[in-house]
């Protein structure tokens, strides 16, 4: 076993399951992108931040939007600025195209002098063909800037973390190249650990009560959107700020709005509470 394996063990503020740690370490060892999927609020994005922290590498983020093009991640050639300069610029040498090339997040990660962590967040938000357009660059970890003919190749293959919300099917060719991990919703023990990281001063009793309510809510059938980890953490914060003691509250859950986000759900839970 290489000594570099087992590099990631979670951090003080990020509790990872054994399976997740293993998947991360496999991805780091094989230098392949790690594709992380899971319910919203299970800490997919936080994983990259904490991995960068644990490995002591800089983190480069690429938040994908519905309009993001794969090429934007590599570089953008600002034609309009060049055009503008050519007409109105004072003593600017517009013949130097390189000045109008701006590296995108992926380009930056490949051009970085040392190994970095690259987060490609919510890859499924973009167009269906988006992952396919990235295949070559993620495989070879290099690309060419057509306008200047300059080639940028990674000195060390960056650690790539890709998150997806399962909104779209990703292409097979893309999936083949990834290490895949599905973050399961934490069970009660792991959840207690996670809450403690965020609220170190919470007492066992309060935590117990809060988890009771939380998992009770999640178990409610026909809920449109189940509350997630981050919502639980926020909710406990709200309880603390307001000084509400869960054990003493009767009838209804205080600050239900932080846990449930649609009126149908609130109504449903209200009805069940009365029954």
């Amino acid at each position: 076993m290489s000594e570099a394996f087992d590099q990631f063990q979670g951090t003080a503020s990020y509790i990872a399951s054994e399976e997740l740690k293993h998947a991360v370490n496999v991805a780091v060892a094989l230098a392949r992108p790690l594709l992380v999927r899971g319910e919203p609020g299970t800490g997919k994005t936080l994983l990259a931040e904490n991995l960068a922290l644990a490995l002591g590498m800089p983190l480069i983020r690429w938040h994908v939007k519905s309009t993001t093009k794969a090429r934007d991640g590599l570089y953008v050639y600002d034609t309009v600025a060049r055009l503008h300069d050519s007409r109105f610029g004072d003593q600017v040498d517009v013949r130097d195209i390189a000045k109008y090339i701006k590296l995108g997040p992926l380009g930056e990660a490949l051009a970085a002098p040392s190994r970095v962590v690259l987060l490609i967040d919510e890859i499924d938000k973009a167009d269906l063909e988006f992952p396919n357009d990235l295949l070559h660059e993620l495989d070879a970890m290099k690309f060419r800037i057509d306008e200047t003919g300059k080639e940028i190749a990674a000195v060390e293959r960056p650690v790539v973390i890709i998150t997806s919300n399962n909104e779209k099917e990703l292409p097979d060719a893309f999936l083949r190249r990834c290490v895949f991990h599905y973050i399961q919703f934490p069970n009660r023990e792991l959840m207690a650990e996670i809450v403690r990281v965020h609220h170190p001063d919470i007492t066992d009793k309060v935590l117990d009560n809060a988890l009771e309510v939380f998992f009770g809510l999640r178990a409610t059938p026909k809920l449109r959107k189940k509350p997630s980890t981050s919502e639980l953490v926020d909710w406990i914060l709200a309880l603390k700020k307001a000084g509400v003691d869960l054990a003493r509250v009767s009838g209804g859950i205080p600050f239900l709005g932080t846990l449930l986000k649609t009126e149908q759900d609130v109504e449903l839970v209200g009805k069940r509470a009365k029954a």
Partner: protein
Amino acid sequence: MLIDFLFELRARKVPVSTHEWMALMEAMAMGLHESSLDGFYRLARTLCVKDIALYDAYDEAFLAYFKDIYPEALKLTEQLLEWLNDPKAFDALTAEQRKALEGLDLEKLRELFAQRLKEQKERHDGGNRWVGTGGTSPFGTGGKNPNAMRVGGGGGRSAMAVADERRFKEYRRDVVLDVRQIDVALRGLRKLGREGAIEELDLDETIDKTCKNAGEIEVVFRPPRRNRVKVLLLMDVGGSMDPHSELMSRLFTAASRSGRFAKFRSYYFHNCVYNAVYEDAEFRRPVQVTDLLQHSDRDEKLVLVGDALMHPAELLDPGGSMYLYAQARASGHEWLRRLAAHFRSAAWFNPEPERFWPGTTIEVIASVFAMYPLTLDGLSHGVRYLVRGGQRPQVGDPSKWVKMAGGIR
């Protein structure tokens, strides 16, 4: 030697490619499976299975391939190493064996033992007889000490136990459908076109125009791309559809999401479409099908959802509607054919499991509309059919119904 496991996976429709398999071999050569079955379970899954829907199939394949390896046998290694650490256990050995062991110090012995165990694991996949056969091993008669060798169950979660639990059953593609999944499937139902307000900068055209203008900048805008697909949804409610009502409401929620389609209308019917469909599920506000057709473009996508199960007479007899006041002069079958003839593309989604389809009225209706099961797979196939056309799925043999009903009118 694991190649059978690969085929075990592929036989269960887990699409593992050579690429991924080589990655697994590479990872194992690097020792990333931590030389344990648990580690292998995680490693192989993380590299070869890229979809939560396939996790259950993976668990099945894993169980089938490793069925002869008992989790208890895996614990054996630990137990034996412990036993070796405990000098008392040596008492059980014969004098010769002890003599043979004398030449080795404990560290060395452990090493040798671990190595031997590893070799044996590779030879027998039975795995439960690692120690004991072959008199040449210094550990050969280890089995003589049943107390030290007792194997405890439970404790720790071995890969076998995890796989056996089959936690990922509910993620299987052919079973569940929630709003989000339907949403994703319906996303395929789109045809993008530029329409509406001119608000997007067309860079290429701007450069082109500017060049033609001898460098005088001329900015060109264009409308953004929008989905142009129009959908007409007809849903069967009540009666035999009651068990599916939850599923129907999810489908409706996903389909009616604003901005999804250029035009979206939905109506209800009961059992089969006759001369009218209804705006409400209580059947109080009827809309004549003839009017509906008049106000529908031929390029709208017609989507029907229902179990298509009824008494043959309800489908094939003129006036077969259960509602007397309907005074239908044509049979339900005829009305369906009129609908099918009007729209260029139409599909019927059926929540009834596919295995119950043959020999029912579903066969007849499937000869009029392309019929797909209301599962994630069925939905995505149906959506593809609606957008691109192609071969209609064949369901049973509708011709025998012609004889039964004395000819379909």
